[in-house]
């Protein structure tokens, strides 16, 4: 009997949010009634969300894509014998050669969307575990050295050199140390952590084990937000899969070292993405931020030395160990080394994940990859780096994606989220939202954030209503200064960034009291 036709369909939750499960069901039904032997492999998403559900088949060793597929056009796909690579209006050709993918540099996301996320053999065939096996033969000091050499900086937003953090934790003598993966991806406009956890969870686990080897930590925790139930399911199974073959537990890969991982759910608090608040939450407490110093690498979870790294930071580690620090640091610009999974979101035609070396410009991302606004209207503002990131204007798109270039422009790269707004946006309303969001999500520990955000929202509301605009703008600017200088953590400290950037760059939206009455598309 001939081999079945293999059909790849994503099970990524965003792909399923536009019908991937239903499409898979109808494909199976059609195949059955036509007597065609097919094997469905559910993968993660490649990240071209505008093409989802993206169905792929294998022909002559290449993956051919069809998308976006709806249940309504499955019958036509079968008529054109898509399972053999037949021509159809939905065919996008060889997926790797499609313009959206061909120019990407996928190091961290090399396997995402390509393999069954829980197939350990497929993971190994696609380069997985090479990093871990290499690390198993190295001393902790040598692993840390490799990490420093790679230039990898924390992908959660702060951009602190990961190797230095690891070195600090390694230098502590303690009976216990921890590795915490921060999977509390709360920034609007970001979904890369979710994608990797749903599409290539082994990469995160492998990175955590290597971090354990490097620092002497034997226990890891993943703090996973409750808004990601699918990621929780897949991560749970992925940990079990590693345990079953002895890749978690005692004497991993004959290294004589032990490591275990526990999953913990968040509970809907944005602030718990802040590392010290996350540690409190992992201890079962209210997610109130801690005063730093001491830094977690010295005194973290339960007072023990703790590495807190973002999911993307840890998922980048296996590549660095497998291919060497130089291979990684050869990508990028200035002090921003390697690649960043950028996320194109909001009002954008071709939204999704673009992994590219640092140095790509915002314009290339938004125009060449993203294809401009979804509505087709002119782009007016872009918020980079989540709810605490600055708003940029259409004139600032030539800015290179680089930590320092962004700081110089009064902005921040954050977790790599790019949210596009068209010309219907009311920037005074956006500024008010930033303050409202901060008031809603503040942990309440420090006054500038707890009270400042409430007063900030009130003041912007007054400005929008045309009350004493000049005086209230002065008051708002003053308040922002206090929040920036006086808050304990980035939540209160950075909320002024979107507020002030909106105020400075879009003053017309603050002067016209009825600006909010602008027509929405």
């Amino acid at each position: 009997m001939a081999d079945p036709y293999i059909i790849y369909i994503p099970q990524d939750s965003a792909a399923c949010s536009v019908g991937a499960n239903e499409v898979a069901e109808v494909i199976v039904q059609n195949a059955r009634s036509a007597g065609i032997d097919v094997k469905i492999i559910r993968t993660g998403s490649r990240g071209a969300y505008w093409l989802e559900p993206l169905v792929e088949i294998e022909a002559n060793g290449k993956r051919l894509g069809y998308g976006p597929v709806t249940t309504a056009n499955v019958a036509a796909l079968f008529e054109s014998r898509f399972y053999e690579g037949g021509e159809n209006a939905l065919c996008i050709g060889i997926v790797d050669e499609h313009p959206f993918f061909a120019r990407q540099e996928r190091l961290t996301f090399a396997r995402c969307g390509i393999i069954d996320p829980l197939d350990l053999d497929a993971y190994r065939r696609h380069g997985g575990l090479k990093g871990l096996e290499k690390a198993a033969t190295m001393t902790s000091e040598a692993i840390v050295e490799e990490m420093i050499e790679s230039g990898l900086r924390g992908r959660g937003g702060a951009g602190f050199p990961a190797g230095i953090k690891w070195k600090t934790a390694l230098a502590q003598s303690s009976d216990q140390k921890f590795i915490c993966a921060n999977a509390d991806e709360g920034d609007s406009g970001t979904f890369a952590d979710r994608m990797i956890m749903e599409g290539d969870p082994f990469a995160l686990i492998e990175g955590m084990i290597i971090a354990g080897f490097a620092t002497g930590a034997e226990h890891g925790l993943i703090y996973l937000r409750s808004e990601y139930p699918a990621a929780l399911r897949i991560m749970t199974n992925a940990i079990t899969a590693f345990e079953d073959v002895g890749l978690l537990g005692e004497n991993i890969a004959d290294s004589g070292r032990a490591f275990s991982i526990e999953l913990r759910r968040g509970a809907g608090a944005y602030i718990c993405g802040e590392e010290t608040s996350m540690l409190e939450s992992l201890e079962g407490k209210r997610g109130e931020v801690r005063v730093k110093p001491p830094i977690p690498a010295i005194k973290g979870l339960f007072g023990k030395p703790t590495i807190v790294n973002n999911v993307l930071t840890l998922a980048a580690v296996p590549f660095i160990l497998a291919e060497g620090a130089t291979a990684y640091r050869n990508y990028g610009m200035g002090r921003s080394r390697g690649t960043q999974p950028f996320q194109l979101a909001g009002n954008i035609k071709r939204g999704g994940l673009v992994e590219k070396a640092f140095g790509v410009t915002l314009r290339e991302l938004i125009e060449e990859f993203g294809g401009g606004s979804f509505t087709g209207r002119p782009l007016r503002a872009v918020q980079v780096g989540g709810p605490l990131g600055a708003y940029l204007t259409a004139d600032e798109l030539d800015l290179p994606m680089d930590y320092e270039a962004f700081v110089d422009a009064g902005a921040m790269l954050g977790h790599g989220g790019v949210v596009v707004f068209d010309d219907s946006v009311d920037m005074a309303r956006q500024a008010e939202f930033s303050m409202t969001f901060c008031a809603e999500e503040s942990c309440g520990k420090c006054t500038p954030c707890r009270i400042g955000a409430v007063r900030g929202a009130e003041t912007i509301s007054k400005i929008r209503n045309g009350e004493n605009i000049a005086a209230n703008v002065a008051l708002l600017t003053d308040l922002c200064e206090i929040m920036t200088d006086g808050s304990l953590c980035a939540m209160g400290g950075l909320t002024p960034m979107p507020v002030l950037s909106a105020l400075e760059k879009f003053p017309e939206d603050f002067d016209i009291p009825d600006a909010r009455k602008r027509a929405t598309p």
Partner: protein
Amino acid sequence: MNAESDLTERTRALCRAQASRPDALIEILHDIQEEAGFIPRETIPVLAEELNLSRADVHGVASFYHDFRDAPPDGPIVKLCRGEACQAMGCDTLAEALEISPPESDGVKSVIETVYCLGNCALGPAAMVSGQLIGRANKENISDALNKTATRKLNGANG
């Protein structure tokens, strides 16, 4: 056995499944809410005793996190993302429309709940019904998702 002692026993069992570790409090609260639909007030002293915490500690945690509710919801929950990426795709207009006439499931009006980011920012506006993510959300596909959940429950599958 009355209902209250059942709840007490069940709460104790959920604690012991986590070895009564105080750091597992949030996990246990999730477990309670999954079973009961909310965190009944009566569970607070039981949790405190079982985990060796004060009642204030437990109440403090249960009230800090947005996920935990202290009363059963009035209807099936529709989580609607109101983050910036979804704002750029008109979630505020959708929210207004949903609040004026909430979609129903089995004749019960749904409860529209605000969340900030569901990780579906390239396919906004995003919503979630029973853990199922909805992209390019509108009244129709939210209604469909609610109906599907109701059907699944009727068939005895997990909701």
